[in-house]
């Protein structure tokens, strides 16, 4: 497989975690209770840490001298390769936590597979991320059950979040040439192989939460090719402003 294809694959891994990590950091100081404020910041820190390592590796593979900061701060939305699910606004707490469950289960499965990557650096990053993802899954699953099996209000909001976000979950498992190249070359995993185990785990959590699994519907896509929702540009404007106003600044 070509370096360009490997770079594209690693960029997807890094961008998913960078964008979701930034979204979660928006809760800092706004969590519903102190413990939850801290928890969301912790998960954000793990994801941004993973993104740092993945984007650094992507930059090395690309070979054009771009490091993790260059990739995070000096690309526009059209060059980001994250799935649409992670760029959506944080919404209410139910939206944030249901999205987190959807992504964390996916990430855990993806990273478990990537522990066997032929790229030793990626395998090492994945081994670390698996441990972190287990905590993210447990945290979000417990919350989804608490909200779903809670009051009428929390149940209704959790169900609405599941229904609204469902159409963004399909993209996580749509494999294209970049994914198939990465899987065939031993670098990555074909995401379509993760769809079934993901669905089994999500259905189990939703059942315990007394929430309905939405029936199959049209699935949104585009993020992996750089076609994003309007939300990503706004998010990046905030995330990148300091680095772009003061390029090369150190502190």
């Amino acid at each position: 497989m070509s370096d360009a294809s490997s770079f594209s694959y690693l960029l997807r891994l890094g961008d998913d975690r960078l964008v979701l990590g930034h979204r979660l950091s928006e809760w800092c100081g706004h969590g519903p209770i102190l413990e939850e404020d801290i928890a969301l910041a912790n998960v954000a820190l793990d994801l941004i840490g993973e993104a740092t390592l993945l984007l650094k590796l992507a930059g090395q593979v690309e070979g054009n001298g771009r490091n993790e900061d260059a990739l995070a701060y000096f690309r526009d939305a059209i060059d980001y390769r994250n799935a649409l699910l992670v760029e959506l606004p944080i919404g209410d707490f139910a939206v944030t936590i249901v999205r987190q469950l959807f992504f964390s289960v996916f990430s855990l499965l993806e990273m478990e597979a990537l522990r066997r990557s032929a790229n030793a650096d990626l395998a090492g990053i994945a081994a670390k991320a698996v441990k972190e993802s287990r905590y993210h899954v447990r945290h979000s699953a417990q919350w989804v059950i608490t909200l779903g099996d809670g009051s009428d209000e929390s149940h209704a909001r959790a169900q609405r979040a599941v229904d609204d976000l469902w159409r963004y979950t399909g993209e996580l498992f749509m494999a294209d040439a970049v994914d198939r190249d990465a899987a065939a070359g031993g670098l990555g995993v074909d995401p379509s192989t993760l769809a079934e185990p993901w669905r089994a785990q999500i259905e189990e959590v939703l059942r315990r939460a007394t929430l309905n699994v939405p029936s199959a519907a049209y699935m949104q896509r585009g993020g992996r090719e750089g076609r994003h929702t309007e939300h990503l540009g706004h998010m990046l404007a905030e995330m990148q402003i300091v680095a772009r106003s003061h390029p090369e600044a150190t502190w």
Partner: protein
Amino acid sequence: MVKRAIPSREELFEILQSVKDPEVPVLSVVELGIIRDVVASDAGVVVTITPTYSGCPAMHAIELEIRRALAAEALGPVEIRTTYSPAWTTDWMTAEAREKLEAYGIAPPGRAESSELIPLRRRAATIRCPYCKSHNTEQKSVFGSTACKSIWFCNECRQPFEEFKAI
């Protein structure tokens, strides 16, 4: 500055015992298992470290402290390499380190997590309160003041406390 004789691996680890974790200052980076290898030669010292968590913000401070400790020994240039495999686990923490943690007021980690894919059930084994040693405790949050800790509450002595998470 005069360079001294090249120290052994054991001597180098002893030097690094002086570098404490900035978030848990009773433990050295050696006791935490962050230092994976140290090799000295005529060309200087190469230290191999592994982060506790991918985004641990203390790693930068720890690197600076390692450089400072080794600079004081005048062993030449210091190179710090970071490795991610094998991934850091709390199982590397020594029994002595666990005692120090408990004495400091942080419950030491139990055995690292099982490979259960989706750990939905709350953990059966409870954590011992570092203050009154009761096992009548409950977890309040999986995440605490730092990435490596969770928040617990002791129902006996009515004290909140932190646990060093097993990973």
